[in-house]
């Protein structure tokens, strides 16, 4: 048993100085990174990581802290992407204004959906969240006049951003996207931190742990679930807008499918849900892995190791590994659920505890 410290010696809550310093340092380092890391591909991978972090941290507020497993976040992602693109392409509204409209739509819709579906629990809520996302996808697919249907919307170009006549950026390279992504990622992390250190966080987690108990302690379930959803939808929609502008194209089969929703959940599951660091870890595992497969780095590596490039296996690897990233996602989920249901973070923590020889100690978790 750990002896309880006298109150004066305990660190005051909410003032975790070290993590804050680390966060600031990481942010600063990432801020300077593009100065020497100029390879467009490296920047591209970084942007994808940021995107995954934003998506994961956003889902985390609803799924991780509040325990409401939405497998329909493609709806908010897609709405953010579509609304921003349509406003820009058809109404020439600059994206830094359009994104506000799109997140507002996503949040508004989310609260309407939430008020309806939040009385469902467990698997029924999951099913409803999928159904809602499918409805949105089918609308986008069929409301051709507005969304251009299955063809999607191709962006001609993004207007340059100027402030007071001074050009800030023309979005011609990947660098501006890098910084926008970094800023959004930092923001979502900050939001998670803020949630965790406020009344909201306590209430969200109470709902996750036991809805009936939470209800009896004066917590309005529908209200707080909706607050969690609103925060989550807000940043998920922002990530959708960011994605659409970065790629320059949206269509229903890339931003509104069940696969998109599942991938968002995966980022959190793999890292560890309900923790600030979880989605970051998840993004750092998933994105490089799928990029390595996609760009044939792994196949090339195997060839270097002696696998003959011209053998049948070699041919097969070369042709197919590039498509294997979703397969790897599947394998990862199965492995994680069976062997590390608390995600990579929980697994590592468990290992550390085992090596420190205090496995059974029920001490306070970091989240």
């Amino acid at each position, binding site marked *: 048993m750990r002896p*309880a410290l006298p109150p004066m010696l305990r660190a005051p809550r909410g003032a975790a100085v070290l993590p804050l310093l680390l966060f600031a340092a990481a942010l600063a380092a990432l801020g300077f990174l593009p100065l020497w890391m100029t390879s467009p591909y490296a920047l591209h991978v970084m942007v994808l990581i940021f995107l995954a972090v934003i998506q994961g941290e956003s889902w985390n507020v609803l799924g991780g802290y509040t325990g409401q497993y939405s497998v329909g976040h493609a709806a908010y992602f897609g709405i953010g992407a579509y609304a921003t693109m349509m406003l820009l392409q058809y109404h020439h509204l600059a994206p830094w204004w359009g994104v506000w409209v799109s997140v507002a739509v996503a949040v508004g819709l989310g609260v309407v959906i939430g008020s309806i579906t939040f009385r469902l629990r467990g698997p029924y809520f999951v099913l409803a969240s999928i159904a809602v996302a499918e409805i949105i996808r089918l609308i986008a697919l069929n409301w051709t006049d507005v969304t251009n249907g299955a063809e999607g919307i191709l962006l001609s170009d993004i207007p340059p951003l100027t402030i007071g006549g001074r050009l800030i950026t023309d979005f011609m390279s990947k660098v501006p996207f890098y910084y926008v992504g970094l800023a959004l990622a930092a923001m979502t992390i900050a939001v998670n931190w803020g949630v965790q250190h406020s009344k909201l966080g306590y209430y969200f987690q109470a709902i996750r742990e036991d809805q009936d108990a939470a209800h009896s302690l004066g917590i309005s379930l529908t209200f707080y679930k909706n607050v969690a959803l609103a925060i989550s939808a807000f940043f998920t929609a922002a990530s959708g807008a960011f994605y659409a502008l970065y790629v320059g194209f949206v269509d229903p089969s890339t931003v509104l499918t069940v696969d998109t929703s599942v991938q968002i959940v995966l980022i959190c599951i793999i890292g560890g849900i309900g923790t600030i660091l979880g989605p970051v870890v998840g993004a750092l595992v998933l994105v490089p892995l799928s990029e390595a497969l996609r760009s044939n780095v792994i196949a090339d590596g195997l060839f270097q190791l002696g696998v003959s490039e011209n053998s049948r296996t070699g041919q097969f690897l070369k042709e197919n590994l590039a498509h294997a990233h979703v397969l790897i996602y599947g394998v990862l989920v199965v492995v994680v659920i069976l062997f590390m249901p608390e995600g990579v973070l929980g697994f590592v923590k468990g290992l550390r505890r085992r090596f420190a020889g205090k496995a059974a100690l029920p*001490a306070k978790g970091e989240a």
Partner: protein
Amino acid sequence: MAAPILEIDRVYKFFGGLAANADVSFSMEPGTILGLIGPNGAGKTTLFNCITGYYPPSRGEVRFEGRRMNGLQPDKVCKLGMARTWQKVRPLAKMTVLDNVMVGALARTNSLREARRAALEQLHVVRLEHKEDHLAGGLPIGERKKLEVARVLATQPRLLLLDEIMGGLNPAESEEIIQLILELKKTGRTQMVIEHDMKAIMRISDRIVVLNSGEKLAEGLPAEIVNNKDVITAYLGDSLE
């Protein structure tokens, strides 16, 4: 005689065609302890659920401090000053002991600092302050029961409903809970207690209500209840001499 703090007025609760509570009426005076007893399946927990907003009563009325409570959601009921514990304890398992109690305290404040102070105070009342950093899910049963009381106290209830708070405890732990209930009474809190340990309930209750198959079988002072023939029959079975 003070105005009653809680009035149960001809409450019925039906599930399908089955009456889990039928025509139950009684009232409680402020500052007293009422024991609610009855054999398995008598409808005690159902009545708790009707009082605290988990189900609306099918018929009849629940009044708290003169206010009609029918149809109010549990969170509203809690904010109005009536709080309950659970027969099967429901710790927020992956939160610490202190955080559990803070969740209760946050019903009365938005400030974490204030909630923390209030929570520590309640942990002191139930003598769990040394466990504040432990995860609630890892506590032994006796401490989980105490945690449940602390958490509910933190919502500052004037009426406390305790559902089998001593179930599964060893005699020493039960005694601690009994002392706690008596201490709370001294601070003026009104309490309704469901309990199977007859010795305990007879000791702590000012009045006792006996339910049997959903209906009120008897009501009175502990001494009257012990000698009530109907109650003996309900508990020990028909002697059929």
